[in-house]
């Protein structure tokens, strides 16, 4: 059973790390949420609806970051045959999809009062919706495979190919005329005033830590599943 050597080592790190990530993430998200609702001024044009930013931006970041992690896991699985890669991919897909959906929903709620529409087929919204469908496809392919604690080669390749959508989402507002505004936060600075911006870093960090905690918990659950099944098989063979 040498294949479990790595997951065991992984568990000894993941077990103590999970509560730290979860509590730290919860604390930052609550602080950021409170600051975003109570301490920041409204926007000069959007008024109070600007506050949805503190959920929308972290959700977009994690929806896209989740797929990047899926693609990296796919490469690690195909090239290095690492046993944790497939487990990580299974664990990441669902929370990634949830954050992607959260991004679309919060964007829609913000779009109605700001733009005057719930949904438009512009480059940014369409490519983000494609990402949601990619997640659905990945989960379907991963569940269709025979592998229990991993994902099939097809799923890993699918994750790598699907990553091409990430630069398209990122550049969609630059390449094409779009209803969605251009990037506010770039390497050269931010066009969001610092009085409005600062709680965003708290929610970004908080949601990211929570995402990490959820992924670790799901990975541990998958590993526990595999191990209990292997134990049952050994008992049955006796």
């Amino acid at each position, binding site marked *: 059973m040498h294949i479990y050597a790595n997951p065991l080592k992984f568990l000894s790190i993941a077990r103590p790390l999970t509560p730290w990530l979860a509590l730290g993430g919860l604390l930052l998200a609550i602080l950021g949420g409170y600051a975003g609702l109570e301490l920041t001024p*409204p*926007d000069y044009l*959007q008024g109070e609806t600007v506050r949805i930013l503190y959920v929308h931006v972290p959700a977009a970041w994690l929806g896209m970051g989740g797929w990047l992690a899926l693609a990296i896991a796919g490469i690690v699985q195909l090239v290095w045959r690492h046993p944790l890669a497939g487990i990580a991919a299974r664990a990441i897909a669902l929370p990634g999809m949830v954050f992607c959906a959260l991004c679309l929903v919060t964007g829609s709620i913000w779009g109605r009062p700001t*733009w005057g529409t719930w949904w438009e087929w512009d480059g940014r919204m369409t490519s983000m919706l494609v990402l949601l469908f990619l997640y659905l496809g990945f989960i379907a392919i991963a569940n269709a495979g025979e592998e229990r604690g991993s994902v099939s080669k097809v799923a890993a390749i699918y994750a790598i190919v699907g990553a091409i959508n990430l630069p*398209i989402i990122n550049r969609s507002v630059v*390449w094409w005329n779009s209803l969605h*505004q*251009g990037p506010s936060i770039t390497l050269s600075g931010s066009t969001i*005033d610092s009085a409005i911006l600062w709680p965003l870093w708290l929610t970004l960090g908080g949601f990211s830590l929570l995402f990490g905690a959820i992924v670790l918990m799901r990975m541990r659950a998958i590993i526990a599943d595999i191990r209990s099944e292997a134990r049952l098989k050994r008992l049955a063979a006796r």
Partner: protein
Amino acid sequence: MTTQTKPRLKPKHQRLVLALIAIVAIIGAGLLAASALRDEAAYFVTPSDIAAKPPEPGVAIRLGGMVEKGSIVRSPDGLGLAFVVTDGKATTRVAFRGIVPDLFREESGMVADGSLNAEGTFVATRILAKHDERYMPPQLGTMPIDRDNMVGTTVEPKR
């Protein structure tokens, strides 16, 4: 990561090279597709596009740009609206009857569905407000803004 595949170093490298080639091919394909879509996937056309290649009157198009300062004229019954849309290089006159979003205002971005009439005026059937990437508290909102930069980042496609 490589602890257990030591005896199979060679096939591992082979897979790495294959994966890298595949990734380069995927990126190439994606960029080709994106550049082919460049004009097709545009959400709206700009006044410059209309000036360069005027569409047939009556054909449905979507126009985007900044509402020119001081150009909004309301009809006496309060429902009609006429204004000029600019992208810094060309302008298009727009006529509309209906309700506009709260964020629709002069010197701000907008997107309109409609078509050109015989006189070259864009008759809009629906108007959306386009928000730009600047967020600030109300007391800063009255500060002078960088006009050139704003037009460049919100309306002009960066090509």
